[in-house]
């Protein structure tokens, strides 16, 4: 098992954001975590990435317990987060942003990974020396994902990657996720775009108010009408009108 989360709790002061969550991602899988706003999805990712200390439970990655390890240690071992809202460095050039992805790389191979990111995203190669602030929203998302790829991750965790993208870009994005997965990268995808997420994922979890309320194969979840009404709000289980 690549990622194995057991009984994870996250608290911020009096707020109990994540309650006893168990989940796992096998090597080569795409797994999605669904839930409405405020369900605890981002808190879950922050704990998985080490930005917040869990109040309980354990996080194992490739067999090692990383619960108490720093974010840097997790990055070195191959966990990488693409945060909500891209969080690229607008004061840096496109190239410098990608170099930040190689910040902890000590092996000599990162230059090759950087080149393969440029090959994958020719738009970024063209804008190599421009400030990242001039990129369009879609290009910024490519940059955020490219930056993550330069770290040579085994597991990429994406937090609401489709948020704020045009429908065309949303399609490209989900194709890209499938492509990365075919290249051997496991994916943990947190999304509000339920229909698209369940289309690319093989399995899914549903969070509500910090607890897991449903889990199963993507097809079963997609066909689950109760899911739509009970947990996900309006835009679940039926295709996003603007995602086609």
């Amino acid at each position, binding site marked *: 098992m690549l990622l194995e989360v057991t009984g994870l709790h996250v608290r911020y002061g009096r707020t109990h954001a994540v309650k006893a969550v168990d989940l796992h991602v096998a090597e080569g899988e795409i797994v999605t975590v669904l839930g409405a706003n405020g369900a605890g999805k981002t808190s879950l990712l922050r704990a998985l*990435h080490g*930005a917040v200390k869990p109040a309980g439970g354990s996080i194992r990655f490739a067999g090692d317990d990383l619960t108490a390890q*720093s*974010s*840097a240690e997790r*990055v*070195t071992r191959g966990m*990488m*987060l693409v*945060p909500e809202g891209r*969080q*690229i*460095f*607008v*004061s*840096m050039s496109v190239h*410098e942003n990608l*170099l*930040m*992805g190689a*910040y*902890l790389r000590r092996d000599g191979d990162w230059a090759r990974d950087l080149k393969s990111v440029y090959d994958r995203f020719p738009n970024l190669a063209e804008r190599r020396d421009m400030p990242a602030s001039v990129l369009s929203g879609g290009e910024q998302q490519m940059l955020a994902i490219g*930056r993550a790829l330069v*770290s040579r991750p085994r597991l990429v965790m994406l937090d609401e990657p489709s948020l704020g993208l045009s429908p065309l870009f949303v399609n490209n994005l989900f194709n890209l996720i499938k492509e990365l997965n075919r290249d051997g990268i496991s994916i943990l995808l947190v999304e509000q775009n339920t229909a698209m997420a369940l289309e690319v994922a093989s399995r899914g979890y549903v969070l509500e108010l910090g607890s897991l309320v449903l889990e199963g194969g993507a097809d079963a979840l997609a066909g689950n009408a109760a899911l739509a009404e009970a947990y996900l709000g309006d835009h679940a289980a039926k295709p996003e009108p603007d995602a086609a």
Partner: protein
Amino acid sequence: MLFLQQVSNGIMLGSVYVTVAVAFTLTIGVLNFLNFTIPTLFMLAGMLAWALSTWGVPTWGVPFVHIGPMPWQAALLFAVAATVVASLLVERFTFRFLKTRYGDATEHAIPLVSSLGFLLIIENLVRIGYGTDTQRFPGPQADMSVNIGGIFLRVPQLVSLVIVLGIVAGLNWILRHSRIGRGLRAIAENPDAANILGVQANKLVPVVFMLTGLLCGLAGVLFAINYGEVSPQMGDDIGSKAIAGMVLGGLGSIWGAVIGGLIIGLTEMLTIHFFGADTVQVAVWGLLLLTLFLRPQGLFGHHSIGKGKL
């Protein structure tokens, strides 16, 4: 000719302001922290250079370990090293301790006030140890000078100017092109995103304080050499002028601090030349206020600086 002589003096004085202003701007740019210990670190370096070359290492009456006066070159070296160590102690007890204890230092007031506390404590410890008098620093031949077309340039001043510009250029190169520099800029812009990519702030923040100590130490000993005297009060005026230079150049901009520091030094000397010493403060601070009215972000500043979150 006297005018040109004053311009040269202004540039020399400005180079001291530049060094201290760069220390200020580096800490503000990366940590969004106005480090009030900077003037006192500057003073500490100058006073230690004097004390070590005049008295030796203080041993507080412990017998048999008396380390006597050392040559001024060694005193300068030890003074700078001690200032770097003092700066790291300040980091440990203002920034890091209070941050780990009280969490997110978006509470700017805590590091700010505790650094102000350090300013007063160090300054008064130096007063208790060495008295409040101005002391003569027995440096190299401070009057050794070259005469270029009638303008006297003192050699130590020329050497310091070159050192200052060299250090600032090196610092700028580090920030622009090295891995550590990118890490520092990442922390400055977005600490969360930097952490996501594995940048460890707790390893890089001490680097900022080390550089601060180095710059202040250098400025302090250069001041001691060039002006031949030191006192526990020497940081007060230099500190406020350096802040003026930094604000003039634009918060967080290294070259802004360089230009700003030089402008303040020149303004000071030329005001003395034309209007006499009484008008200096009015001219310097008036110029600063005028600049802020016309260009609030400073000459080279970026409006996003000062909004950091670390």
